[in-house]
């Protein structure tokens, strides 16, 4: 279900694996109450540091996506599932923010940025319409 993270990407491995797990939950491949692999099993199958797997599970517990039951393992929470939409929007917002900041630094005006976004959405609609 999980693929090996890319160690040479600049994105920390724990962030890559956190995103994978969230994605798997979003797609419904893992549902509330489902159990994730044990730390050792996941570390061995992805050939990654077990301390990093533990960190991933802790962070996801902190975000409410997983519940760590002592001695039993990590389980998907109800909240994790329903919150995935919110998380998705939050992630998208930060991507948009970065892009807007970048375009602004390149000297584009607010109006130009807005026009570009609108034009792109319209183009998408047209593409879908002609399908």
């Amino acid at each position: 279900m999980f693929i090996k993270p890319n160690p040479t990407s600049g994105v920390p491995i724990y962030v890559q694996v956190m995103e994978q797990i969230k994605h798997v939950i979003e797609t419904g491949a893992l549902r509330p109450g489902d159990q994730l692999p044990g730390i050792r099993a996941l570390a061995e199958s992805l050939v990654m540091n077990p301390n990093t797997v533990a960190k991933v599970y802790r962070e996801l517990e902190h975000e409410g996506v997983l519940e760590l039951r002592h001695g039993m393992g990590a389980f998907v929470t109800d909240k994790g599932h329903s919150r995935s939409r919110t998380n998705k929007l939050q992630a998208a917002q930060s991507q948009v923010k970065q892009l807007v900041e970048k375009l602004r630094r390149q000297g584009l005006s607010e109006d130009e940025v807005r026009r570009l976004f609108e034009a792109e959405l319209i183009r998408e609609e047209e593409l879908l319409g002609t399908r």
Partner: protein
Amino acid sequence: MSSAILETVALTKHYGRFEAVRELSLAVPAGSISGFLGQNGAGKSSTIKMLLGMMRPTGGSGRIFGLNIEEPSESIEIRQRAAFVSEDKRLYDYMTVEQMIRFTRSFFPGWRGELEQRLLREFELPLDRKIKKLSKGMRTQTALLLAFCRGAELLILDEPTEGLDPVNIEKVLELLVGFAAEGTTVFFSSHQIAEVEQIADRVFIIDKGRLLLDAPLDEMKEEYRRINMVFDTPLQTPAFALEGIERVRVDGRSVSIFASHNIEGILNHAHALHATSVDVLPVSLKEIFLESLKAR
């Protein structure tokens, strides 16, 4: 992962006038997989030899499991509890693989027989072949098998994947990950930065015997950035003397900065200088390694 299982304080080694290791202070956290990176001749093997009592330090001190590396009786205990694979994968050439294993096993009461059988299968080692006749890769695999099966609390590995093909490298990394999951601490040197990047949680970079960098890998990846900027008019290097900047390369109107922290501050500065384009890029450990060497 709180306390250090292996620690050196200002560890120093001189060979005549040559300073191989200079005041090296390391702390390897218990339960970590720590990667030890450096160019050839940076002092990695000298450091490891001092840690194992195979060479006397010129100055400074070191402790493993709280035991003094320079005290002969304590050094023996260190070598009982820590397994070691040396750079030259030293083995008895006249023995067969089977004899070598049987010989080593007799010294270690905690020998893991089941693991031995599994590794013999996975590494496809020819039991009846003389060590002398083994290929470089098989020699490495034999040395690893001997170290892994001892049931040690600490693995000190000098180039543990030397001579192995990619499939076998991945097998070794998977094994190391499994040992770490059991609580074994792994301290390994490697030329293969990608390997270190894949499984280490802590990285030490040394150059010319000195420690250049000591940090958790995640932290490095979150903090280090390459920032590429373009300006309307050519700039001078002194325009970029800010905290966090490790290296600046000015090439006409474009400036490339390698920074370890203070990214926000550097971006504000770029903005104040009216950069027409700014790109912030994440960096790999290889880039961090190469830039750290150049920055000196």
